[in-house]
């Protein structure tokens, strides 16, 4: 880690030899500001000003050459330019100083056009005084300026992706294609997340598992990617370029291949509902995960296993009940968190869910469609001739409407569900043309080209009935049939009853419970429960912690295409670190004088980036320490330090005081 080197007190400093160049800007300044007077005044006042000139255009090649020549011939060691806004030309003069062999930060660019001549074109005297004082502050600045250099920090050229849904798969693939080493860690025993469960995805009608498999087959071709399924993070430390992460690979208890897996699974006496199918099917205690697995082995759910030994007898040494978890410590430069979402689970009795057998959620219905045998849609032992979709279940909730006690209401819209439901209706119409479909909705949010799906569904016979938030539909059961009662303007605001064979609750996305990961990584969480990006408009995949990125539905609800974009975007941001052996960082960071530090810890608490910590520093004891790879140079810590021990490189407290004093100097006669 680079250090900011300060002049030690008492150390002889070479006396400042300053060159001042005041720009006319072809009249834009000199028409209102007496540039000759400005140049003369500061030269007269200050013995360290060796040369003070006024030039037609400071930024011209000729003028820059003149500065360079002066620096070299007159042995100038500081440069002050006074011209337009530093936003336009500060970089120009820093570059000129560099060409002259002067450290580029021993310069100051005073703003005397946008902040003197132009706003005070009505007051040439005032404009001249102000310009003079801005130049004085520049002189004060450079006098105590220190040479600075770009900070360098080593960068590990590898990335960890946490979460192996389509977002994480995409991110891993993009990074590998950019020749970056990737560790992909998935908690479940298989890859593909929720997408793997989908019977048909919008807008193309592909099976979710097909989308997953295409990505996984590309991943398999990438030697740069190491995949860990059934694994999780157990420790995390470090900072951008140098994170150290421990991954625990949980045991599968099946350690080797065998030709007899099918028999062994058949032999297992334990049977539980299969989560992947939302309980519509069953699995055994030893089972094959339903998505792509790495390694390609079944696993034993030890919590369910009765240790009857049936599988072991068939599989022999391939089963190892004493397989321990294995910890692996990995060094990575950045981490992408793409841990996804959870389906909203309606509360018991919410729109009849869990009480009326003909009420299911959309994810459950997706799985039901997978098991159709072509003879017609059936549920709960009867044929399904009509379906009611109820939108916004668990989304767009009013305050206090939360169905889970203690959790905040889901005030947000889940984004994908209108599109997904209408696509689902089209899918049903395609498979079972005679099924009547009713949609009870608040607003149909088929944004963008998804509108075409909506239009098509209307033509395919779907009936859309809008309800308002004040009159939500009621689901009841009479004579064994589910009824949806709704009051809607299209129905003359009368309560109308729709008996249907199946009610599909269109449930949204909710954030995933992941407390230990969130705490380990200090992930910021927004009011909607999803991860909070550092800037909602401009930096959707970045967090306050440099090198810690968020992607996919862990950040907000998204559809498949959008989540892939998000995964790629996070890969791009990770690559800005991972493609470099060394990170170059702006030198304007905070630094601590440990001799002055009272270890109050105030700066540690104030820093929004977690860049400061108290650590042992030799003879000084435990003092504040700034990780300059993490510091962004905002200076918030500077304001709270009781002893002025922490200051900002390139803008020290003494410099600030000197500049304020210089700005406050009264003109003679004023």
């Amino acid at each position, binding site marked *: 880690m680079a250090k900011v080197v300060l002049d030690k007190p008492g150390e002889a400093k070479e006396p400042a030899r300053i060159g001042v160049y005041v720009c006319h800007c072809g009249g834009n300044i000199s028409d209102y500001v007496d540039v000759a007077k400005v140049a003369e005044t500061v030269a007269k006042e200050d013995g360290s000003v060796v040369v003070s000139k006024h030039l037609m255009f400071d930024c011209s090649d000729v003028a820059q050459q003149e500065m360079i020549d002066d620096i070299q011939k007159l042995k100038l060691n500081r440069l002050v330019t006074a011209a337009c806004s530093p*936003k336009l030309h500060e970089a120009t003069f820093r570059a000129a100083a560099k060409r002259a062999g002067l450290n580029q930060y021993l310069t100051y660019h005073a703003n005397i056009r946008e902040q003197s001549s132009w*706003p005070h074109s009505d007051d040439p005297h005032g404009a001249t005084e102000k310009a003079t004082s801005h130049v004085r502050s520049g002189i004060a600045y450079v006098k105590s300026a220190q040479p600075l250099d770009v900070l360098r920090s080593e960068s590990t050229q590898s990335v960890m992706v946490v979460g192996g849904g389509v977002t994480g798969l995409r991110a891993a693939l993009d990074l590998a294609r950019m020749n970056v080493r990737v560790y992909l860690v998935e908690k479940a025993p298989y890859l593909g997340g929720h997408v793997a469960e989908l019977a048909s995805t919008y807008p193309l009608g592909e099976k979710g598992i097909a989308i997953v498999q295409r990505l996984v087959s590309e991943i398999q071709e990438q030697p740069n990617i190491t995949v860990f399924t059934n694994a999780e993070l157990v420790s995390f430390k470090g900072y951008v370029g140098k994170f150290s992460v421990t991954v625990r690979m949980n045991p599968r208890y099946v350690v080797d291949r065998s030709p007899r897996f099918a028999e062994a699974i058949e032999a297992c006496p334990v049977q539980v509902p299969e989560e992947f199918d939302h309980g519509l099917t069953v699995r055994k205690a030893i089972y094959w995960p339903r998505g792509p697995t790495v390694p390609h082995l079944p696993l034993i759910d030890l919590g369910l296993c009765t240790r009857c030994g049936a599988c072991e007898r068939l599989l022999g040494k391939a089963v190892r009940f004493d397989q321990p978890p294995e910890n692996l410590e990995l060094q990575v430069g950045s981490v992408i968190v793409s841990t996804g979402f959870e389906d909203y689970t309606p509360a018991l009795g919410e729109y009849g869910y869990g009480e009326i057998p003909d009420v299911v959620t959309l994810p459950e219905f997706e799985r039901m469609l997978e098991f159709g045998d072509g003879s017609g849609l059936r549920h709960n032992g009867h044929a399904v001739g009509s379906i009611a979709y109820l939108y916004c279940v668990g989304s767009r909730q009013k305050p206090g409407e939360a169905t889970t006690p203690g959790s905040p209401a889901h005030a947000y819209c889940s984004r994908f569900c209108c599109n997904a439901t209408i696509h689902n209706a089209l899918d049903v119409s395609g498979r079972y043309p005679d099924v009547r479909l009713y949609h009870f909705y608040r607003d149909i949010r088929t944004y963008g080209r998804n509108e075409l799906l909506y239009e098509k569904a209307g033509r395919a016979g779907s009936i859309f009935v809008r309800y308002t938030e004040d009159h939500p539909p009621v689901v009841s059961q009479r004579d064994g049939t589910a009824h949806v009662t709704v009051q809607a303007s299209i129905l003359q605001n009368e309560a109308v009853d729709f008996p249907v064979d199946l009610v599909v609750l269109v449930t949204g996305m909710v954030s995933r419970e992941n407390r230990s990961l969130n705490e380990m990584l200090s992930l910021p969480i927004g009011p909607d429960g999803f991860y909070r990006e550092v800037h909602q408009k401009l930096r959707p995949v970045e967090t306050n912690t440099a090198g810690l990125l968020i992607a996919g539905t862990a950040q907000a609800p998204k559809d498949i295409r959008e989540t892939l974009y998000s995964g790629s975007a996070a890969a791009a941001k990770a690559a800005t670190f991972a493609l470099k052996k060394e990170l170059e960082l702006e030198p*304007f960071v905070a630094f601590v004088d440990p001799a002055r530090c009272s270890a109050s810890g105030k700066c540690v608490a104030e820093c929004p980036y977690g860049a400061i910590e108290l650590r042992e520093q030799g003879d000084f004891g435990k003092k504040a320490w700034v990780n300059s790879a993490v510091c962004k140079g905002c200076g918030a810590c500077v*304001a709270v330090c009781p002893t002025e021990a922490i200051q900002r490189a390139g803008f020290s407290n003494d410099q600030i005081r000197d500049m304020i004093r210089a700005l406050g100097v009264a003109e003679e006669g004023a």
Partner: protein
Amino acid sequence: MAAAGFEPRILVLSTNAISDPGIDYAGSGHVHYPAAARVLRFPCSSMIRPEFILHAFRSGFSGVLIAADGGDCPYLRDCPERTSRRINDAYALLKANGIDPSRLRMSGICSVCSEAFAKHVKSLYEAVQKLGPVVPPGA
């Protein structure tokens, strides 16, 4: 009462990313405000130590305007809260030193808020002109 012919000087503390460009924008548009307003730019207004403000009043300034970023700060989401804390501390410090805290003001200036900036400078200038110069305690 204001001293006769008293010409107050105002120190504006701006921020690199947002309010300083806003002040530039006033200049580009030739929006006028008193030339007595001198500008010193900070990376972020949450860096301003209350003592800097006291130092300004002791260096000849009779008014200080903090041109903050408001919610647009590129560094800190809670920049307005942090800057408010600095200002509250500064108020206390000024009071303790016998300086009228109304000489210090803060306003969020966006990168194109030229009119708002000019208005705030003018208003502070006028207020400070009425208050007269800062008189050190015991003077």
